[in-house]
């Protein structure tokens, strides 16, 4: 039978406590993941002056539009949903604004349909006779990139791909929309 001498005890204690180290490491990694998650979830809205997050919108008629490809134009991105009553307030004004700028060719309107179903969405577009490109926010990827908080929200991107204007409520008139777009246009 092996005797436990003081030397043996010292040798046993001098080994690294791997169990404890692993436990602490695991705890540290878990806390780091939670911290990263909390930080990203508590990020505020995108701000004016920051580069507009890029996205590709697949429209209801299957056309694919990428924001980056529209560099050099002013892009009006409107988040809406067919179940959203405030969206109805601005729908006609947005369409009127689109028709006003359409012939210039340097202003693009994009409608992003958020957490909606296709049949009511198509009925909504038909009801307000909306003709600018519209498509669903597949996987809510676009709204997450813009960190939207609801609908309607409108983001206007300038010719350099920078966010120039943000509206987190419905536009109240065509004049208000024009006032947001006109300063961004080259004379």
């Amino acid at each position, binding site marked *: 039978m092996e005797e436990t001498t003081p030397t043996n005890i010292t040798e046993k204690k001098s080994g690294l406590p791997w169990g404890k180290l692993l*436990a602490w490491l*695991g705890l540290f990694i*878990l806390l780091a*993941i939670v911290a990263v998650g909390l930080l990203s979830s508590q990020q505020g809205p995108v701000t004016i002056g920051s580069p507009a997050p890029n996205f590709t919108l697949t429209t209801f008629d299957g056309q694919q539009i990428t924001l980056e490809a529209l560099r050099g134009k002013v892009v009006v991105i409107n988040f809406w*949903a*067919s*179940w959203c009553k405030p969206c109805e307030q601005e729908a006609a004004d947005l369409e009127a604004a689109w028709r006003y700028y359409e012939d210039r060719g340097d202003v693009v309107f994009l409608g992003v349909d958020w*957490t*909606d*179903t296709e049949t*009511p969405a198509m009925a909504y577009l038909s009801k307000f006779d909306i003709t600018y490109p519209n498509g*669903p926010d*597949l*996987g*809510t*990827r676009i709204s*997450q990139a813009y960190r939207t908080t*609801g609908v309607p929200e409108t983001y206007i991107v300038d010719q350099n791909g920078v966010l120039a204007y943000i509206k987190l409520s419905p536009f109240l008139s065509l004049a208000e929309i024009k006032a947001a777009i006109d300063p961004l246009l080259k004379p």
Partner: protein
Amino acid sequence: MRKFWLATLLALLFTGLAANAALAQQPTPSDDEVNAIAKQLYCPVCENTPLDVCPTQACAQWRELIREKLAAGWTEQQIKDYFVEMYGERVLGAPPARGLNWLAYIVPPVVILAGVYVLWRGMRTWKQPLQAASPSVDVPPSDEYVARLEEELRKR
């Protein structure tokens, strides 16, 4: 005789057609069938409220979509996959077991096991000093001060 065979043939033909028509007609899915799937989904508009009890119009539209898909013969899994594709993984009540999502499944049992281990270690450590501290009646205390203290306590 010929008329008899013709009549039999027509009767069989009509019976077959009627049965086929009955099979082709999908009955409208009931609310219970719709809610069985809806309660596993959450709409981003009203967070933390399952779709089956959410009162908003957005959720009503989603339930109607489930009904349409069920009527079209889609399975529960197909409908859930469609919702994830359209609205993102956050519509699911439980995250799919892949990538970092595994943490949601692994961490709770690991933490519980670690807690049980710590408790067990703690209980063993607490028991040892108690056993060591309980003095034997026969063994006189070695410390004079302790002896006096015990003597005083016995007197009270």
